[in-house]
């Protein structure tokens, strides 16, 4: 029997040479007449060790980190196919502390299975939740989601069950499930990893959402910067249709759900749910006024559930194990696990899934290992370009929606970007305005013009604190959506926690 070797087909691993590695392993094996079967799995989320090469041994999977093409002959010499010792060997994958100390629920299969094998997906618990849901009444499914306390993982933290309930109660023959996969926040890649590594999980979650709300049509709105995810999702959709997990009369249940993929065209604001709907309708991604809520008048004016990728991916396990199970994980009103993402100037970056409540210190220092360049961590930005900059003094804060609100920050999509000693916080504050100016949809004045005025104010040699605060207040109170209303968060947090960078002359 041929030996199974795992080399991620994930976009990051490919950026770091995984394709060349796979070719080198294949040809070296052929030259040595050793039969191997290379599986292009997803990423385990250990970005610091990519490309991560794994082999299946009698004791379990053994990992070799940062495996490069030039290491291949030596790896064969070392007998890596049976887990042989080599300086890049990380031991049994499951025992690597960075992974073993996580609580992998949503990401339990990611990097473990062949992402496009329905058989492997099912062996690892896939479609159990959906099979159960096919035999439940819509109200029973919603009851479980409500009981779970699941909140939207896209940023706002809105209870998913309430959203679903609203759509279920809405009248109209046609309803939609829209998955927001426009993961535009810098420092976030959880959606990308799960879509590339376990795409059937998302499909399963979306079908369950359809069953719960009476929607028979779904669409995944994917950003165009993720071409690898697009390719994998396209194939996964076709496979799921063929296996009758999508389409008409799913598994003989008499229930239907059609799902399609829509690729965006490069616009950050399209991650805002109403701009996303406009974009799906072929228009510029300009935000709509709310009300009406998309739950009542969404895509084509019809009732629509819009959930983030991770929210939908959390659903199957809730149905499998029950809402109560989920509600006991995490802390207070932040239930379940959160896939945090460590990025930027970080020694051990990647995806860390933990129950809510873990402190920033645990994430930044224990998992992240501090900065990549070895300087002390000076700041972290949490929740993307619209998230707060926080100093190490606040690293004792627990990751909990409410605890973050009290320090003027948000968890957002769970992205944590580390900055070392070299960061200039004034530059970062100016960038927040610059990004807003670049990405503003232009509909409302506070965002469209405020961003430009803000850039100008931060370019002046002396900082007019009162005027900047005034501008921020106008943007917060007067913007049509979060783009303008939240741009002041990085600006004002930078000024509050790093005042020393705003007193000196511009460099």
């Amino acid at each position, binding site marked *: 029997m041929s030996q199974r070797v795992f080399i991620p087909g994930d*976009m*990051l691993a*490919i*950026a*770091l040479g995984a394709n060349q590695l796979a070719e080198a392993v294949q040809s070296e094996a052929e030259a040595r007449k050793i039969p191997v079967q290379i599986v292009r799995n997803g990423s385990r989320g250990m*970005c*610091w060790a*990519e490309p991560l090469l794994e082999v299946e041994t009698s004791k379990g999977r053994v990992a070799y980190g940062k495996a490069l093409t030039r290491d291949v002959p030596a790896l064969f010499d070392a007998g890596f196919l049976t887990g042989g010792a080599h300086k890049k060997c990380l031991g049994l994958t499951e025992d690597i502390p960075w992974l073993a100390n996580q609580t992998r629920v949503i990401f339990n299969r990611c990097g473990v299975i062949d992402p496009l094998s329905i058989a492997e997906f099912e062996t690892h618990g896939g479609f159990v939740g959906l099979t159960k849901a096919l035999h439940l009444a819509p109200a029973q499914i919603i009851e479980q989601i409500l009981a779970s306390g699941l909140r939207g993982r896209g940023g706002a933290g809105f209870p998913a069950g309430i959203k679903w309930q609203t759509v279920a109660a809405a009248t109209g023959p046609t309803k939609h499930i829209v998955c927001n996969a426009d*993961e*535009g*926040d*810098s*420092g*976030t*890649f959880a959606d*990308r990893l799960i879509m590339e590594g376990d795409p059937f999980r998302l499909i399963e979650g979306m079908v369950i959402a359809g069953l719960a709300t009476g929607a028979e049509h779904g669409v995944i709105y994917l950003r*165009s*910067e*993720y*071409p*690898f995810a697009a390719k994998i999702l396209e194939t996964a959709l076709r496979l799921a249709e063929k296996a009758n997990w999508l389409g008409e009369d799913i598994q003989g249940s008499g229930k239907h759900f059609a799902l399609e993929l829509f*690729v*965006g*065209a*490069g*616009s*950050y604001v399209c991650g805002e749910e109403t701009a996303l709907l406009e*974009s*799906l*309708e*072929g*228009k*510029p*991604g*300009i935000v709509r006024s709310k009300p009406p809520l998309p739950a009542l008048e969404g895509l084509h004016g019809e009732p629509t559930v819009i959930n983030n990728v991770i929210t939908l991916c959390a659903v199957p396990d809730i149905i499998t194990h029950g809402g109560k199970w989920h509600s006991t994980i995490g802390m207070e009103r932040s239930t379940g696990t959160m896939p945090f*993402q*460590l*990025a*930027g*100037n*970080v020694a051990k*970056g*990647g995806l860390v899934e933990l129950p809510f409540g873990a402190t920033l210190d645990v994430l930044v220092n224990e998992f992240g290992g501090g900065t*990549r*360049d070895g300087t002390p961590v000076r700041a972290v*930005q949490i929740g993307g*370009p619209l998230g707060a900059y926080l100093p190490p003094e606040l690293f004792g804060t627990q990751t909990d929606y409410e605890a973050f609100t009290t320090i003027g920050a948000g968890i957002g999509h769970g*992205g944590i*970007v*580390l*900055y*070392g000693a070299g*960061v200039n916080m004034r530059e*970062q504050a100016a*960038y927040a305005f610059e*990004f807003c100016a*670049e*990405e503003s*949809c232009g509909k409302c004045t506070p965002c469209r013009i405020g961003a430009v005025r803000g850039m100008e104010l931060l370019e002046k040699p002396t900082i007019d604190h009162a005027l900047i605060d005034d501008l921020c207040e106008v943007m917060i109170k007067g913007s049509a959506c979060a783009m303008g209303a939240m741009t002041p968060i990085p600006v004002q947090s930078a000024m509050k926690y790093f005042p020393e960078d705003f007193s000196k002359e511009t460099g």
Partner: protein
Amino acid sequence: MVQWNDTQANRLIDQAARDGLVVTGALRRLVDHFGYVDDEAIAPLAKAFSRSKAEIYGVIQYYTDFRDKPPGQHVLRLCQAESCQAVGARELTKAVCEHTGLGLGETSKDKNLTLEAVYCLGLCANGPAAELDGQPLAELDSAQITEILRTVQS
């Protein structure tokens, strides 16, 4: 990329409309085929999708992916977002601009190379990141990127 050709473009537009796509779907096919959307496409797009020419123009201008000028033979997109900034994206961008004599959004006179900004490729734990002709790149430094650029410039 293929040189712009009205007949081919019209065929792609009609096919997209027949396939039930929205206008951005047609624009995507045009960009994938020609690298950009020529002004000549605005009228046929308006007709095929029952929209005004102004609306079509608005859609093209709104989305970054829908270039209105032909790009160079090679396109290098450099990430400008925070995670990459934290590990030297600004310096890397400066080095690339100096090496090529181009600013972001510019194409070389010989139409060989276009530089573009991109805001996040999702490779944030391993920045600075970039993408050359659709190929993702990570953990870049100035020496490496100049070396890569040499391969496309020769």
